[in-house]
């Protein structure tokens, strides 16, 4: 039978605040275990949590960036369960009154646009970290992460394929990083994703029985896990069986999901309003203030680049992957006045160099203005595009200006026609056989002559002039 997948995602994003959500402890990753703790995040009796204002501001940012309604009032609730990474016996989260609701994120697959609904965005605290002993039946608890601020972004069950889910996830990630409210590091767990997935016969509108997938710590794994789960559920349904509603873990090494086999005990979190925290009123002026300071978001930037710089959708996509890269390109484009050429240099050589060293554009030794200068030198004919490839490599290695490198290496292009004519006639004289071939109609040997001339000039000959002169000189006499 033909089935349709129904997928919804829950994303947890760690916010880039300096301190935890309810206390003054640092959120910095990598500190000695349990050194960023205090009576509040350790859950000592009698302490009072106080909300970090920046957490609310960051959550409003994400709400606005995903077209959500920011609720005028929201409040915190306690989610009660026992687990050693949760010292209080409850997680402070939002339940009945989340900060933001009814948003959407636009994705595009093969040129087709689709809006994925956002059910809600709420603020909550992260739990601690457990390290399990491999040989003994014990676990070690590090509570540094306890109380680190999170936003949970819950999507509508709007996705119909693993590909759509991956596209949605990438968009969310991109927006969070653009807003500079989350570092987006999936491996360190600052951006985590759980998926709910069910299948239903094609054309059916009621939902099938879903499973929840966890433990997917990369975009690729989210897509792989969903693809696997679609197949798994399909086999069960085709066999006349029934999918078991359960949580399943993705096993990266084996490329499968397997049941967590937790004790069959329905979760009952007994949410109730947290009496330690007063409600939050978010006035229109606060929302306006945040909105005023929102940066240009990736999708808007992409569309503007395509219009303003006449670059392709693909190029605009690559160049807006990060805000820093987009800013870099834009400066090169503006300074050089040649946006398309700027795009090629940034996407080609610059990204290649950076990727080879796994460096960020922020650490690029070539400044945008130096790259723009190089583009200007090619445009003026001072150097050829081929020579520029060498120059840009030198620029990357030394951080020197293009003119300095050109001078040092004596790389100035030969554009003088009489000098070039002399070299061309020498090449023609030395190769009578190829001349005869060319004149008998084998035009392919033209390339051979260009190669010989370039060799004779160490690549410094201006290719355009060579082409013109060579053509003339080969045909005459």
């Amino acid at each position, binding site marked *: 039978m033909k089935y349709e997948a129904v997928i919804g995602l829950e994303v947890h994003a760690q916010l880039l605040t300096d301190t935890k959500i309810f206390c*003054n402890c640092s959120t910095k990753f990598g500190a000695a275990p349990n050194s960023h*703790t205090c009576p509040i995040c*350790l859950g000592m009796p009698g302490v009072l949590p106080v*909300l970090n204002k920046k957490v609310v501001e960051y959550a409003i940012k994400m709400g606005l960036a995903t077209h959500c309604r920011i609720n005028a009032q929201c409040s915190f609730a306690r989610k009660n369960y026992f687990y050693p990474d949760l010292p209080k016996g409850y997680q402070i989260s939002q339940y009945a009154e989340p900060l933001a609701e009814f948003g959407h994120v636009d994705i595009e697959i093969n040129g087709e646009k689709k809006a994925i609904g956002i059910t809600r965005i709420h603020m909550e605290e992260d739990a601690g970290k457990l*390290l399990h002993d491999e040989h003994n039946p014990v676990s*070690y*608890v590090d*509570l540094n992460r306890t109380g680190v601020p999170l936003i949970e972004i819950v999507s509508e069950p709007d996705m119909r394929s693993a590909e759509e889910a991956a596209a949605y996830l990438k968009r969310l990630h991109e927006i969070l990083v653009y807003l500079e409210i989350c570092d987006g590091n999936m491996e360190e767990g600052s951006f985590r994703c759980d998926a709910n997935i069910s299948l239903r016969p094609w054309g059916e509108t009621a939902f099938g029985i879903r499973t929840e997938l966890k433990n997917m710590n990369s975009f690729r794994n989210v897509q792989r896990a969903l693809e696997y789960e679609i197949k798994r559920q399909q086999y069960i349904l085709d066999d006349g069986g029934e999918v078991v509603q359960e949580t399943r873990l993705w096993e990266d090494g084996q490329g499968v999901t397997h049941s967590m086999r937790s004790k069959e005990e329905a979760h009952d979190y007994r949410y109730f309003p947290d009496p330690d925290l007063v*409600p939050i009123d978010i006035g229109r002026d606060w929302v306006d203030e945040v909105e005023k300071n929102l940066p240009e978001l990736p999708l808007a930037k992409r569309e503007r680049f395509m219009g303003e710089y006449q670059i392709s959708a693909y190029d605009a996509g690559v160049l807006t992957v990060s805000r820093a890269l987009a800013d870099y390109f834009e400066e090169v484009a503006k300074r050089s006045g040649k946006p398309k050429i700027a795009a090629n240099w940034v996407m080609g050589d610059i990204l290649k160099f950076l990727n080879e060293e796994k460096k960020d554009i922020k650490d690029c030794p070539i400044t945008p203005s130096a790259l723009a200068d190089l583009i200007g030198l090619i445009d003026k004919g001072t150097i050829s595009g081929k020579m520029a490839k060498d120059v840009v490599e030198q620029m990357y290695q030394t951080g020197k200006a293009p003119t300095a490198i050109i001078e040092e290496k004596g790389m100035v292009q030969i554009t003088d026609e009489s000098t070039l004519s002399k070299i061309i006639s020498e090449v023609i004289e030395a190769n009578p056989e190829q001349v005869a071939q060319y004149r008998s109609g084998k035009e392919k040997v033209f390339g051979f002559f260009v190669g010989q001339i370039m060799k004779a000039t160490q690549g410094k000959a201006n290719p355009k002039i060579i082409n013109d002169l060579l053509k003339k000189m080969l045909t005459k006499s």
Partner: protein
Amino acid sequence: MKITKKEVEYVAHLARLEFAEEEKEKFTSQLNDILMYMEMLNQIDTAGVEPMSHAIAQKNAFREDSIGESLDNEAALANAPDPRGDFFRVPKVIE
């Protein structure tokens, strides 16, 4: 009776509490008494009254995002029954 003994057992389990039989009976009747008392509130007309999530009228209690002092590791682990190195140590739990 609004609350049954079964519900008392369920809630006790969620809270990881264990009770003797007579305690369960006692709590069942006590919880029912409390709920009956609460029922009296239902007689009041609350149409048009916003539900409260907090007993005091204050709103928007915030702190600024500036780092303060944390406990040193020794103090953080002082109440732990079974610390090891920098960690709290607990029986292995994998959900």
